[in-house]
């Protein structure tokens, strides 16, 4: 099989990146027209970070966590509490007031995001410490429980002066520029890819493939599982922080188990073990859900109201599509493969060969 020159693939990648940035800039410039699309894209980019973080753990290390919503909540509340302008805090916490040390605590957005990630990572460390020594299945149960506990804590009246209880936090300043979301998301994903492609990432994959063999290769199971889990929590926390900034107001209901399932669906849809699959999955999931809004509006054809077309119907359609995709593409859209120009090139070549084979009279296709 012929492959493309390295330089060409770099050029193509750079071209694609430049095109994406141009499109985003254009959309941002004409914001009035594209506001809606832009917000979908932003949300997708934020979910992509959480999805890739989950993939790092599940697809590359073979560990299964269901704590995404909880770790995102940690990041989100950290960022919200630190970035709501001091002047507006009394009006946000108007019911029970704000705890003294927090009233003046502020941090610039980047530091708040980083801190949100670090808090999530720290909590991940403490959960992982007892749990990761046990069989892998326990992690899913422990993190699921943790996620619900976090939500209960956030809504608890005792913490009203920190989290504002069930009233949630408002007036979170948004991103200073639209592109920033994509920049931060891109950076996070890039960092995770670097980890996966390092020697440590290979050790993670060895654990996924066969724990006993990995251990006999001198790879400390607990240490490396803990590492993967903490890294995953860190980026999940950052993703949560970005979600808070994007939504501008959050409360405990934002971080229900449904959020975890969304991330899980993205990972499964994109392909467990494929980074580009997770990114693609985030955009398809988030956008798909919006495109299907059509089904939520009553539809009248020739004076007859079509049944089923009412609020909530799109979720039925959405679930059906998801089911079909997962059934048809057992391993998600990308399987464990990654997007690559060579892959596309090979695909086009195969397509070309098929054409020339089916065309009568033409002698054999070109050689490999």
């Amino acid at each position, binding site marked *: 099989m012929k492959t493309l020159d390295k330089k060409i693939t770099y050029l193509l990648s750079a071209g694609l990146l430049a095109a994406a940035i141009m499109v985003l800039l254009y959309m941002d410039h004409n914001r009035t027209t594209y506001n809606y699309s832009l917000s979908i894209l932003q949300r997708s980019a934020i979910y992509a970070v959480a999805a890739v973080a989950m993939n790092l753990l599940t697809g590359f290390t073979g560990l299964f966590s269901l704590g995404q919503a909880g770790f995102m909540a940690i990041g989100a509340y950290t960022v919200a509490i630190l970035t709501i302008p001091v002047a507006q805090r009394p009006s946000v916490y108007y019911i029970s007031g704000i705890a003294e040390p927090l009233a003046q605590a502020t941090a610039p957005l980047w530091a708040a995001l980083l801190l949100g990630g670090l808090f999530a990572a720290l909590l991940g460390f403490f959960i992982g410490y007892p749990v990761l020594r046990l069989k892998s299945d326990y992690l899913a149960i422990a993190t699921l429980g943790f996620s619900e506990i976090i939500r209960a804590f956030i809504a608890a009246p005792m913490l009203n002066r920190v989290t504002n209880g069930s009233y949630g936090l408002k007036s979170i300043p948004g991103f200073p520029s639209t592109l920033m979301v994509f920049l931060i998301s891109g950076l996070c994903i890039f*960092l995770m890819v670097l*980890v996966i492609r390092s020697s440590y990432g290979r050790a993670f*994959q*060895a654990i996924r493939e*066969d724990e*006993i063999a990995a251990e*006999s*290769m*001198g790879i400390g199971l607990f240490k490396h599982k803990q590492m993967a889990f903490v890294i995953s929590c860190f980026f999940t926390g950052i993703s949560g922080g970005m979600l808070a900034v994007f939504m501008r107001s959050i409360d405990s209901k934002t971080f229900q188990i449904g959020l975890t399932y969304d991330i899980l669906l993205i990972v499964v849809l994109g392909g467990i073990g494929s980074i580009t699959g997770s990114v693609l999955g985030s955009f398809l999931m988030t956008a798909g859900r919006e495109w299907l809004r059509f089904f939520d509006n009553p539809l009248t054809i020739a004076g007859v109201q079509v049944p089923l077309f009412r609020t909530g119907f799109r979720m039925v359609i959405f679930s059906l599509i998801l089911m079909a995709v997962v059934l048809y593409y057992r391993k998600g859209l990308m399987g*464990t493969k990654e997007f690559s120009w060579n892959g596309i090139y090979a695909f086009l070549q195969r397509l070309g060969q098929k054409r020339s084979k089916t065309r009568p009279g033409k002698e054999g296709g070109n050689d490999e």
Partner: protein
Amino acid sequence: MSETVLKLNRITMQFGGLMAVNDFSMDVNRGEVVAIIGPNGAGKTTAFNVITGVYAPTNGSVDFCGETIISNRPQGKMRKLYAGDADSICDRVVRKTPDRITKLGIARTFQNIRLFKSLTVFENVLIAKHMNIKANLFSAAFMLNRHEEHRMRQETAQLLEILELADVADEVASSLPYGKQRRLEIARAIATGPELLLLDEPAAGMNPQETNDLIHLIHRLKQDFQLTVLMIEHHMNLVMEISDRIYVLDFGRLIASGTPDHIQNDKRVIDAYLGVAEDE
């Protein structure tokens, strides 16, 4: 004189009431090739799992190069169930995990091949180099350890060359034919830089030609890497040709040990095992 590399002291491994290994002692000297033979279910693989820290023995200890790496005594509910000798009970409890034992210099292959199936041949061997990595997560992720990474890759390539796997380096491990998968397991074990290599039925499923190649390969690896070899094997030709000494297990118990000549003429061994093996 010859120096003892591995020493098993009265190892007993009980699974519930089943004595998989029963009061088994043995030693392996530097530079030797030692074989453990015995009928199916005799406890050979279990002995390997004890040496490498996969199972904690019910009782007994293992020394490697003079250091006790494993030592256990019947604990918890095994205190009641323990059916071994009361006078053999160990006083220390030492439990090193399998990764620590590999780092100390014991590498192994598995009877039921355990490759990293969906990774390439090259990656399978490269992973074995990870345990000695100097770079931490950050320097490795940011590729600040270029030299180290380069060295790891170079050593991997060399090893694949020696084991004649270089031509399939980029193939997915599970796509290899059986014989090559076994050889890849050996390559991967050697990549950890062991002093002692444990081979669990390396010739299983190989044809006579491949078995013959394997004999040469083991000889060569032993020379090139100054290895001591302990292996489990059912192919009697291979065992008799390659081993300096042989231990024979039957129902977890040691029934004979000695040179190949000695073992071949031992009546108990012939009754328990060799007679049967030749019928097969």
